[in-house]
């Protein structure tokens, strides 16, 4: 951590002073999301009046300002301990910045505040989002230079950054969900950015609808958590002294004194802070049940925890009428599973992956920012944020691992044969997200976040490189019409080569550090408990790694090597992109090359990020995995170079291809299956409902029925309308008499 201490030493002396340092950064956390929001407002309301240059500059500066402040705040979380409010004996190590700005929702016993929480986990995410975001904003100024809706584009992009930062910084699940929906909205708006094209607008809707499916699960998961714990906060509320925010006390664990509380002397005792959050509960249960790491598959029987090992009156605190005491473990597993459904939607995992490849309809920088580096990793972030809860259920973790593993291999196989340069990268993203969930599923949450970070570097780089190629090729995306670009676009070529190497897992690139460790974790997990499923997943992941290396270098071979297959006119126009686009490429290439070194240099990731540690030694079987993963990576690269660079092989027309190729090209007919069976079934169901509910129940029974009933009663009543004035007078008289009678005798 010496490097971190070095970063802190940059801070001015007056801020490093205990008692001032912490509160200052905690209270100004709101600046990080506020800056992009201000940029959004300026671009939204000024898009008619400010110039294109100003519009792009405002958006980029807003992103950079957020990055700058996030960087300072992140340093603050690594800084010296704060002595806290004067006279306080508690020392606050600045592990996390936490500030609550307002009470937001307060209904009955449930309350939810509006606050931001920046610890190492959200800090790393924030830095990636704002850092890569700034570069992509800069790049967009070049890429979108000729677009007529320039300001609208930057307006959406800044709104996206704002939502994403809400998602990451929110100190409770509800705020996270607001950001979650916000990024979904921005994703929809940006996929359908060129909405005049019906196919692109439809792709936006497809993304939105697929996400709705996931979001429903996510929302239900939150409901279950509220039913169990009665709170949505991650951690307890900060102590507020005067106007200053200090982090609240964490759980205190101690041995009971002779006659203290309900615990017998010598028993372990966990003392929760005043308003415990989800992670406080998770920590308490973990400590009391003696669970170390993931090996404890807790039944969550709080009473047993109470009498057997320690004293924590959780059952009093969790006065849940929905889930009685014995079923809390089940409820928690259910909640995690439902949350994971949400993560599947947002992070494009099987079976909700199909929107991501179509999302490539948006502008390429959007694909880089939203559909590669940041938004799609929100699911991984959420799982990591609640990892202490996920870690309680081995079953849920296994489900996550299996879904992640299947997605990784499935998407990698699909990526092998795509001919659209962006679709190759899209399937690659789905596949890499699968690796992240694979890591989370075996319990290596730290590795999952590590892969999020490195993936953000190299995949953003690859997308931006692809954008540069598309820009130079006059909007051509078909790999079959490219070729020989390496001489005409040297910067794009070299930077993309570095990105490809990182994606393929060439040793000592950023991607190698993270992916190799994920594979290693799988193998170590198998060595640890000898469950066959992890061996199968390991083999699948290895094959996936081979495919990854192959399709990456197939892309490079088709685009940059051989001779150009573009039309004369397009060839004439091919040019290297302007510096505003190549500078971000170079910066990202540097990070893709060396970004893994710091994390890979023996830092204890789970400890640093505050995540539960895996129950097994990650480095077990390291050498074997090193060899196998290396073989897979270099095998894939070698085969691709052999086929597409040396032999100059080109994809043949689809009709001449073998069945396996067609299977991959058609994405295993999954989308056709969705189209026919899911959508068709849904349409059939809708048709049945239309007939039963709409036609028979509503139209016939309710609408015509109500009308008919009124008509029938009216037919009876109209007989009274005799038209004889005297009869009416008699009616009046009789009525008057009745009223009189009632008055006198009632």
């Amino acid at each position, binding site marked *: 951590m010496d490097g971190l201490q070095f970063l802190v030493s940059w801070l001015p002396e007056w801020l490093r002073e205990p008692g001032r340092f912490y509160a200052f950064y905690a209270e100004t956390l709101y600046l990080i999301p506020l800056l992009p929001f201000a940029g959004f407002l300026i671009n939204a309301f000024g898009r008619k009046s400010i110039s294109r240059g100003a519009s792009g500059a405002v958006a980029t500066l807003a992103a950079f300002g957020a990055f700058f402040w996030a960087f300072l705040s992140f340093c603050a979380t690594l800084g010296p301990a704060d002595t806290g409010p004067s006279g306080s004996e508690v020392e606050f190590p600045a592990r996390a910045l936490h500030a609550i700005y307002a009470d937001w929702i307060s209904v009955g016993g449930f309350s939810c505040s509006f606050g931001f929480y920046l610890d190492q986990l959200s800090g790393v995410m924030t830095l990636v989002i704002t850092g890569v975001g700034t570069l992509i904003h800069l790049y967009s100024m070049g890429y979108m230079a000729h677009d007529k809706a320039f300001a609208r584009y930057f307006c959406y992009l800044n709104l996206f950054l704002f939502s994403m930062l809400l998602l990451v910084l929110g100190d409770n699940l509800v705020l996270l969900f607001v950001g979650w929906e916000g990024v979904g909205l921005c994703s929809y708006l940006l996929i359908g950015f060129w909405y005049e094209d019906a196919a692109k607008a439809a792709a936006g809707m497809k993304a939105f609808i697929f996400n709705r499916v996931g979001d429903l699960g996510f929302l239900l998961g939150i409901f279950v958590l509220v039913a169990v714990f009665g709170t949505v906060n991650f951690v307890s509320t900060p102590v507020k002294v005067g106007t200053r925010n200090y982090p609240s006390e964490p759980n205190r664990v101690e041995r009971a004194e002779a006659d203290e509380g309900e615990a017998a002397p010598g028993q372990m005792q966990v003392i929760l802070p005043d308003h415990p959050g989800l992670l406080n509960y998770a920590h308490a249960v973990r400590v009391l049940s003696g669970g170390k790491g993931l090996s404890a598959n807790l039944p969550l029987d709080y009473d047993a925890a109470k009498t057997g090992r320690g004293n924590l009156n959780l059952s009093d605190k969790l006065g849940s009428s929905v889930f009685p005491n014995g079923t809390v473990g089940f409820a928690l597993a259910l909640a995690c599973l439902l949350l994971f459904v949400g993560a599947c939607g947002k992070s494009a995992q099987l079976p909700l992956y199909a929107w991501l490849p179509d999302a490539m309809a948006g502008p390429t920088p959007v694909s880089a920012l939203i559909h590669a580096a940041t938004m799609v990793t929100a699911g991984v972030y959420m799982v990591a944020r609640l990892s202490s809860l996920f870690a309680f259920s081995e079953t849920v973790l296994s489900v996550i691992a299996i879904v992640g593993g299947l997605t990784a291999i499935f998407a990698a196989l699909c990526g092998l044969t795509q001919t659209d340069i962006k679709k190759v990268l899209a399937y690659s993203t789905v596949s890499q997200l699968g690796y992240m969930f694979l890591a989370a599923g075996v319990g290596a949450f730290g590795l999952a976040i590590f892969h999020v970070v490195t993936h953000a570097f190299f995949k953003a780089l690859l997308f931006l490189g692809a954008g540069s190629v598309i820009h130079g090729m006059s909007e051509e995306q078909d790999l079959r019409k490219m070729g020989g670009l390496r001489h005409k676009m040297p910067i794009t070529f070299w930077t993309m080569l570095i990105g490809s190497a990182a994606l393929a897992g060439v040793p000592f690139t950023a991607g190698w550090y993270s992916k190799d460790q994920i594979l290693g974790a799988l193998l170590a997990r198998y060595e640890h408990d000898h469950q066959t499923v992890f061996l199968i997943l390991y083999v699948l992941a290895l094959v996936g790694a081979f495919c990854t290396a192959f399709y990456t270098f197939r892309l490079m071979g088709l685009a940059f090597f051989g001779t150009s297959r573009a039309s004369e006119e397009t060839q004439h126009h091919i040019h290297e992109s302007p510096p505003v686009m190549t500078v971000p490429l170079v910066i990202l290439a540097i990070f893709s090359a060396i970004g893994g070194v710091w994390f890979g240099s023996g830092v204890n990731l789970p400890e640093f990020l505050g995540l539960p540690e895996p129950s097994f030694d990650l480095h077990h079987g390291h050498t074997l995995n090193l060899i196998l993963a290396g073989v897979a990576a270099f095998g894939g690269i070698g085969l691709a170079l052999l086929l597409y660079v040396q032999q100059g092989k080109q994809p043949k027309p689809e009709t001449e291809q073998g069945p396996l190729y067609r299977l991959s090209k058609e994405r295993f007919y999954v989308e056709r299956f969705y189209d026919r069976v899911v959508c068709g079934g849904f349409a059939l169901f809708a048709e049945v409902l239309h007939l039963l509910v709409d036609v028979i129940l509503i139209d016939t029974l309710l609408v015509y029925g109500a009308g008919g009933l009124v008509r029938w009663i009216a037919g009876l009543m109209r007989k009274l*309308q*005799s*038209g*004889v004035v005297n009869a009416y*007078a008699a009616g009046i*008289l009789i009525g008057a008499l009745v009223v009189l009678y009632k008055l006198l005798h009632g």
Partner: protein
Amino acid sequence: MDAALTLAASDLVQWLGNLLTFRLASCLALSGALFAIGAWGVLARRNILLVLISVELMLNAVMLAFVAFARAHVNLAKETGLPYAGESGQIFALTIIALAAAEAAVGLAIVIAYFRNRQTVDTRDISLMRH
């Protein structure tokens, strides 16, 4: 003769005095009779003018009842020493006079307008409200 005459005169005075003595019951009986006659007229008459006149009769019956009650309050006040409280009856009577005038004006106007259109004032012919 004188004595007889005197007797007769005093008897007459007595009788007249008795006759003119206010009796609430009598007034209400008269009012009820008038109201019943009016109601019968409204129900039974076919000529709309007569129906209107019957309505007037009913209104007058009600008015009579109000005035009678107001008068009865004079005696009540004398006997009990409580303050007189019969003004509202008289005010109601005045209101009814005004109302009856308005009703007659509107009613007759309708009848005239109707007669100009249909050349009839027989209620049996006025049956446009029939379904």
